[in-house]
């Protein structure tokens, strides 16, 4: 059974159509890549799925339950967590406190929250930085803190918005390994990524958006050969 179903979702802002009639499904346990040129509507799809915007048309189902129209915190409580492309750490809190704050969603008390947080920090290799005030973290670690925080809510589905952008090669390898380990823990992942090599290597399936519409869907191999996709990206390369 599919974990998440996005059914004919559209989202308008004033007169602008950011996303139009997009449908796709995510199966439990897979990594779904969401790609497309700049302004294709990827982050808008995330914001609709995560509840920041209600869809203008269409519906979203999670674990068979309709979640479109719910608030982000209600959706998170149902087991869907996300990261932000522009990182939003709780600036004046330490790395540990950031993660503890989100661990409280499932934890009964402070002790349990601490345990969850310690586990997640170990898992994302941030444990040594736990007492650093998050404002002072370098970008690579702040991106990882986003992931750690989302994981601390113990989600079934994790939405990652450009968690690899701006990382150096060694951080990149580390992050890819973390994503693979998350998958091993049985957490389903949807990921937006610009880095084509990364997305091709870790995704099980890929959905391609362009101008707010879905133009292709398939395995990385199929997507790589799809002329529509190649054209969309070439178009971007030329205009850039």
């Amino acid at each position: 059974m599919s974990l998440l179903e996005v059914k004919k979702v559209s989202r308008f802002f004033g007169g602008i159509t950011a996303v139009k009639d997009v449908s796709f499904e995510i199966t439990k346990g897979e990594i779904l890549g969401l790609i497309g040129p700049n302004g294709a509507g990827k982050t808008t799809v995330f914001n609709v799925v995560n509840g920041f915007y209600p869809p203008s048309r269409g519906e979203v189902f999670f674990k068979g339950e309709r979640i479109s129209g719910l608030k982000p915190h209600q959706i998170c409580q149902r087991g869907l967590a996300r990261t932000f492309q522009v990182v939003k750490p709780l600036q004046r809190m330490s790395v540990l406190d950031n993660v503890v704050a989100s661990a409280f969603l499932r934890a009964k008390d402070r002790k349990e929250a601490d345990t969850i947080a310690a586990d997640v920090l170990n898992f994302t290799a941030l444990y040594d930085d736990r007492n650093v005030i998050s404002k002072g973290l370098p970008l690579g670690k702040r991106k990882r803190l986003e992931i750690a925080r989302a994981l601390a809510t113990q989600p079934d589905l994790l939405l990652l918005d450009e968690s690899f952008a701006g990382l150096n090669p060694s951080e990149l390898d580390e992050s890819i390994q973390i994503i693979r380990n998350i998958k091993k823990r049985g957490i389903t992942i949807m990921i937006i990524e610009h880095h084509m090599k990364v997305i091709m290597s870790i995704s099980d399936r890929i959905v391609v958006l362009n101008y707010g519409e879905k133009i292709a869907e398939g395995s990385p191999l199929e997507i790589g050969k799809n002329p529509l996709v190649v054209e969309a990206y070439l178009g971007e390369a030329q205009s850039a």
Partner: protein
Amino acid sequence: MKRYITYIVLGLLALLPLLGLNSYLMHILILVIMWSVIGMAWNLLSGYCGQVSFGHAAFFGVGAYTAGMLYSKLGISGWWGFPASVFVVAVFALGIGYICLRLRGPYFALATLSMGVIFRIVAENLVGVTGGDLGIMIRERTWIDKTWYFYIILIVAAATYYLVRKVIESKLGYYFVAIREDQDAAESLGINTTKYKTIALILSAVITGFAGVFYTNYMGYIDPKVVFALHDISIITIMVVMVGGVATYWGPVVGAIIMVLLAEAIRSIPKLGTAHHTLFGVLLIVIIIFLPNGIVGDFSKLKRLFGMRRPAP
């Protein structure tokens, strides 16, 4: 040592009346403690949860009027205001929260400011209910001596301090600070921001209302201009915490000491009476520019500043 400092301070304070201080000094002490309570309450909502209120006079006034009206309408002791105000203030806070908490940042601040003004105008105009501009006078004072008032407000302050600490170290506190730091992030981490902001508001309001109840019983007279005052209550509340230290445990206490002493000092300068807000305004500007996190919050900065002034060896 540090763990016991709270108890030591509290113990010393409790022994103070034994020194036989005169009535004026007791009055100053009582005011300092009362303002610490209001400051701690404001700090909970604004310092920790980041929802800056410019209208705490509304809660102070509702608390004060709860006590006053129990006396004037029902003829029972104003001290019953303590239990009654919990309910009354919470209901008003819920209403204000429902209206204002949908606004963010500075817009919330101004919306609460307007609420404080609305409350004052309504209290002035609903003469049948509040007595209007004439106010409420409590004719039979409970005690002439100030000692008991001192102990009552000290107990309120100690309880408030304890409550704030407990709240901030618990899940609530983490959620409050998360909301302050980034509301969108907090929301997406499963925090029902509206709910927790409302909780912070109600806690803060009820504590402020307690201070209002105490004020009525202690001063024996209230009117809308005094207890719903924008400058003399709402803004001074902000200043107490800003001067002392935003989002610190001891900031409101330090701020209350400074503000009350300053107000008294300024009052003692002849011919300055009407203009004492000028100095408050200047102090506020100076603090915001140089010590944006207050004396306690920027203590390290202060130490450095004074360290630098020392002549080089």
